[in-house]
């Protein structure tokens, strides 16, 4: 009986994340009622499989946005990773796990470069990551111009085949990577000094500097993390599709950022939860499932709906920010 007294207070700060979770459950419930076959483990597992790679990248993007920055290069990193792995396999017979490691190395270097340019040269984030987006997309085409299928690669086949049989679907290993990253993301954001620093930098960078926090190092690390997770997302994507294509994932950065915003993370920085991003990714995934169920709801309607959701959350954030500011003043 006592435990009910400890129900969380409906503080203003929790409004975004509660809205996110409510929207997700409402949508899922509505879809389950409207569409036969929607409410099943098979479908539930599929949402995870389809959006695993997005989720991984979104965890990284959450940290970036909480710190008040942005990373526009993630889509291109995914495309580059996929075509690199595919090309190495086709032209040199390189086993995919080796090229995956190389890609992670490239991701590390990229993240370091982006982080340093932003932190030590004080170039605007959108500019540096925009250039990175250009660069990686161009390099992807330089690697190879068309699609390459990956056949008979033992590692990829293993990652796809192995998994837990859940109902009619297979919760493959590569989906577990997403769940692992998600849990790690939540833990890092809440329980490590790095996590706290990220929030501090996003909340008020000059205060953070005055407080003696390692702001510069934190900022560089954030972009390293984002690029690494983007590369990892690219690896999972390649496994999922068993092919590489430089033309892939144009516009993925919008997808990821939208998911993070719908997840309740403040665009101005300083607040946001990784768990919120998780639901944001699922909501986005749900919206884009709809066209396959309702013929009249075409993909451009899904785009517009997501745009509206993002706008709604931004307005909610503005409202929350104002309320908090007023509370502080009084």
């Amino acid at each position, binding site marked *: 009986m006592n435990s009910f007294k400890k129900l969380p207070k409906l503080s203003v700060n929790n409004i975004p994340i509660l809205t996110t979770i409510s929207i997700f459950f409402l949508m899922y419930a509505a879809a389950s009622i409207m569409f036969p076959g929607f409410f099943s483990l098979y479908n539930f597992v599929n949402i995870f499989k389809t959006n695993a790679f997005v989720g991984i990248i979104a965890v990284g993007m959450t940290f970036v946005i909480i710190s008040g920055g942005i990373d526009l290069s993630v889509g291109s990193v995914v495309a580059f990773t996929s075509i690199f792995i595919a090309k190495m396999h086709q032209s040199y017979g390189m086993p995919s796990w080796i090229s995956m490691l190389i890609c992670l190395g490239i991701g590390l270097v990229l993240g370091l470069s982006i982080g340093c340019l932003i932190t030590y040269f*004080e170039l605007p984030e959108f*500019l540096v990551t925009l250039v990175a987006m250009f*660069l990686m997309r161009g390099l992807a085409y330089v690697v190879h111009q068309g699609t390459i299928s990956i056949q008979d690669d033992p590692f990829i086949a293993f990652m796809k085949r192995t998994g837990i049989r859940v109902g009619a679907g297979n919760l493959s290993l590569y989906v577990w990577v997403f769940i692992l990253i998600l849990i790690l993301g939540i833990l890092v954001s809440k329980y490590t000094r790095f996590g706290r620093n990220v929030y501090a930098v996003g909340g008020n960078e000059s205060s953070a500097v005055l407080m003696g926090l390692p702001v510069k190092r934190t900022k560089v690390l954030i972009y390293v993390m984002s690029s690494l997770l983007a590369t990892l997302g690219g690896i999972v994507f390649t496994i999922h599709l068993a092919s590489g294509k430089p033309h892939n994932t144009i516009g993925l950065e919008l997808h990821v950022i939208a998911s993070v915003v719908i997840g309740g993370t403040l665009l101005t920085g300083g607040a946001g939860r990784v768990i919120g991003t998780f639901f944001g990714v699922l909501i986005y995934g749900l919206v884009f499932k709809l066209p396959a169920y309702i013929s009249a709801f075409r993909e451009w309607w899904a785009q517009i709906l*997501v745009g509206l959701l993002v706008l709604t959350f*931004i307005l909610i954030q503005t409202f929350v920010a104002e309320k908090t500011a007023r509370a502080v003043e009084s």
Partner: protein
Amino acid sequence: MDGKLLQNPNPLTKRFLFVLAGLAAILLLNLIISPEFFQVSLHEDGKIRGNLINILNNGARVCILAVGMTLVYATGGIDLSVGSVMATAGAMAALMIRPGYLQGLPVANPQPPLLLIMAVPLLIAMLLGLINGALVALVRIQPIIATLIMMYSARGLAVLMVEGQTPTYHGVPFTKLGLGYFLGLPLPVWIAAAVFLITVLVTKRTALGVFIEAVGENRKASRYMGIRTRLITMGTYVFCGLCAGLAGLVHVAGESSTSPYNTGNMIELDAIAAVIIGGTMWGGRFTLAGSIVGALIIQSLSTTVYFQRWPYEYSLVFKAVVLIVVALIQSEKLRAYAAQGWASIKSRRAR
């Protein structure tokens, strides 16, 4: 009012010369590798043709976009939606020229007046710009996010308008906008020149230019000085939308078709690169002439790649490298580090 806020002589002039040198370098490089690059000839039908004309013609769209983007950039903002707004404007024009395309009907006969075909899409483009401006100035969303949403939504709108198809309309008067010639040069070049000149006149002859720079440099101080910062900010986005709409019309007119997926795809990157290479500061002094030269540099990079028969995507890598190098050179921090390095070398020599 001579448009100078500080006592320093205009640092932009020095930068402009650098940028001009950059353009000259690219063109020279092409000339050395392939001498026929500069061939320009006057043909029997009175039209001047050649590779240089191609650069100007193909670059006209980016020039128009860059003019609009310059003012937005000067207020400390950015507009990522220009490509999608181009697509929407093109879609609207297609709907007016050939409303029956989806039913398999030919172009509308008689055609609506050309001015109307231009006006309606431009008004829609300005409206989209207004939404961007309102989100940035009134709702206080960061420009990159607000225009990112618009980039997404406007393209969805364009696809919706033509239901995912690519309407074609050969031979209608509208296509003159992209294919016509005036005094030997392609019309798009004239349009770009006009946009540039008018904008220069308005921003330099009125206080508008100063106000834009003031808002960009210090929004709070400008507001206290009595400048209507919100109005100015919104105005730049509306103007940027207008430029995007115009660029869109020129583009679809030249193609005699509207492709909602492809029109303006990734062109915002070209436009932003043009502005940055041109020397405009992010929140501060702007140079329209620099942006035009920047746009031409970007276009030259693209044309060089085609001309040398390299794969088109190499141009992405070039643009990325050029852009970051230019941004670095322009960055104050680099100067600070260089100064530090120079100072420590000097002190070591003195010892």
